[in-house]
C-alpha cells in the first residue's frame, strides 16, 4: 500500500511515492528530502520514518 499524503497548500491528496514524478528533471536528484505536490508544486519535507512507524503502531 503506497503512502498517501495531503498537500498542506491545496489540500489535494496524492500518492507520496508517485509524487516523485513531480520532481522529474530536478537537478537535486531527490536529495532534498522533500515531497512535491503534483497539483500545485508546493514542497513539504518527508516525514521521518519513525513517525510513519508510530502512526502504524497507533493505528492512525
Amino acid at each position, binding site marked *: 500500500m*503506497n503512502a*498517501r499524503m495531503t498537500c*498542506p*497548500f*491545496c*489540500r*489535494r*491528496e*496524492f*500518492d507520496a*511515492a*508517485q*509524487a516523485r*514524478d513531480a520532481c522529474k*528533471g*530536478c*537537478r*537535486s536528484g531527490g536529495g*532534498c*528530502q*522533500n515531497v*512535491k505536490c*503534483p*497539483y*500545485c*508544486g*508546493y*514542497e*513539504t*519535507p*518527508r*516525514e*521521518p520514518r519513525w*513517525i510513519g512507524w508510530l502512526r502504524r503502531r497507533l493505528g492512525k
Partner: protein
Amino acid sequence: MSLSTSIRERLFPGTNVARSAQAPAAGPAILLVGNPNVGKSALFNRLTGQYVTVSNYPGTTVEISRGRCSALGADVEIIDTPGMYSLLPITDEERVASDMLSGADVRCVVHVLDAKNLDRMLGFTLQLIETGLPVLVALNMADEARDLGIKIDVARLAAILGVPVIPTVSISGEGVADLVAAIKKTPPPSPFRVEYGNLIEEGIAGIAGRLSAGTVAARARASLLLQGDSRERERVLQEKGDLETARILQIVAATRTRLNHSPHYYVTLALRARVDQIVAECVRAPQRAPNRFRAALDRLCTHPLTGYPIVVLVLYFALYKFVGGFGAGTLVNFLEESVFKHTLIPWAVRGVAAVVPWAPLRSLLAGEYGIITLGLRYAVAIVLPIVGTFFLAFAVLEDTGYLPRLALLVDRGFKKIGLNGRAVIPIVLGFGCDTMATLVTRTLETRRERLICTILLALAIPCSAQLGVILGLLSGSGAALAVWAGVVLAIMLLTGFLSAKLLPGEQPMFYMELPPLRLPVLGNVLIKTYSRMVWYFREILPLFILASVLIWIGQITSIFQLLIRCTEPLVRGLGLPDQAAVAFLFGFFRRDYGAAGLYDLHKAGGLTVHQLTVAAITLTLFLPCIAQFLVMQKERGTRVALWIAAGVFVTAFAVGWLTHRALLLLPWVLG
C-alpha cells in the same frame, strides 16, 4: 443460493453479490470514479464483496481493484479507478483513470460524490457527462449530509444533469440496491452540455470535426486537447497519425492565440459558474453560525482592505514576537549563554586541550572559529531555535489554510512586479530556505516569472534563520526595525517592478480552488515542524562545519586574514567597524552564518543602532549562500546566475551605503 451468498445478502441487502476470485471477465465494465476520500472504495466493496482482484495497471505502479456483482450479470466487471479530481490528468493515478475512461469497454460510469461537498465535486460530474458515456451519480455519505441539515433536491438535480442521481451510504448499504437497479437499466448518455464561450466553442467544434467518435465523445476530447492534455494528444497521434495530428494541433494553437488566457482557465470558470447555478437550484444548506464565521474570516483574509492589515498582524505576532522575540531572544539566550558559553564550550576547550596535542587541530576543533566553538554553536544555539520557532509558526499558518488566501490576496500586487499569486509558493518557501525555493520557481508558468522570482529570492527574501537573528538583533529598536523592513521591502518592490518593465513577456492568470479554513491540528503542526527542523538541520550542519574547516585552512594559509583585509574597506564604507568584516565574510558563504556573526559582534557591544541597521540591511540583501548560487546556475544558466550574483552584491553594498549616508543626514530617524 449458496450459504455464503445468503449471509452476504442478509448483511448487505439488495446487492446479491457473487463472491469469486476468478480472473476478471471480458465484458463491458462499470467504472467507479471520483475524488479521493468520497467512500468510493467502500462502495466498491459493498457492490463486489471481499473477493476482488487487485493488480497494477499495466506499465504503472497504480493499483486497480476489480470485482463482480452477480446482480448485474457474471460477465460485468466493476472497476474501482484511482481517485481523480478532474478529467485533465496530472498524477499517474489520474492518467490511469483517464485511460480507463477512454480505452475500456465501458458500460457506464458511476461518479461517486461526497454529498456534503457537492459544489466542489459537481464540476467533475459535468466533465464526465460531456464524455458522452452513460453516467450515474451516487450521492454518497448522504447520511452525513442529512445530519448536517443539507437538503438536496435529488429529482431536480437528476433532471438538470439528465442522469440518474441516487443517494447512497456505502458504509450501511443505504441506496446501494437502487444504484444497482439504475446500473442495470444503463441510462442513455445525457444531452447536458456546458457553454464555454464563443472562442473556445469554435475551437472545440473545429477540432471535434476532425476526431472520430470513440468511447469518449469528440467534443470532450477536443476540450481536453485545447486544455493541453498530453495524454489525449498521444491518443490522437496513435489514432490519426502525424499529419492529421499536426493539423489538429494547429487549430489548438490558433485558438490559444485568440484567447487572453489559457483555455483551461476559461473551461474552469465556465464549469464553476454552471456548478454554482446547479447548487443554487438544488441544494439547501442551513446557515450555521460556524460557517458564517468561516465565510466572514475568508472574506476578511482575501479582501485588500482587511487582508493586508491581517498580514501585518500575522507578521507581527508570528515573526516579530514569536520568532524574533521568543526564538531569537529567549531561546537563543538560554542556549547561547547557559548551555554553550558557560557549559559546553569551556568543557569542550578543556577536553580538546587535554586530548589533542597538535595546536592547529585544537584550533580546528575548539579555537575561535572552531567546529565546536563556532560551527556547532551557530547551528545549534543560534539557528536551530530560530528555525524551530519559525517552522512552528509556519506550520500553524499552513494547517489553517491561510497560505492559499495569502496567494489570492497578493495576486493583484504581485502582478505589478511581474508575478502572480502562484509566486507566493516559492516566496513563502524562501523564508524557509531560498535554495529550495529557487528550485520551486519552476512551478511558475513563464520563463519571465521564474527569472523575476529567482532575482527576488536571491536579493530580498531572507531565510528564516537570518530573519530570526535580524529580528532578534533589531527588536531593541522599533525605529531600526522599521527602517530595515522599509528598505528591504522597497528594494524588493523596486527590483520586481523594474524587472517586470525590462523583461518582456506575457502575464499569466492565477486561479485556484480555496480549501476551507480550519483550526490547526496539533499533531499535524508538531510533525511538520519536527520534519522541517530535521531537514534544515541536516542541510546546514555540514555546511557550518565546512565553513569552520575553510576558515581554519584560511587561517593556516593566511588567506582568511587577507580576505578580511580586502573586505575591511567595504565595511568601513558602510560606517561599520573593521571587526564586522568577519561577519560579512561569513555572509559570503551563507547569509544566516553572517547574521550569526553579526549577533556575536552585537553581543560583544561592537555595534551602535545605526551600524546594526546598516549591517542588517546589507547582509539581508546578500546572495543567500553558495548552494543558492549553484541552483541558480543550474536553473537559469551560468551567465544569468553570474549577472544576478553580481547585481545582488552591488545592490547590497550600494543600498547599505545609501542607508548609512541617509541615516547620517537624518539621525533623528533612529531616535
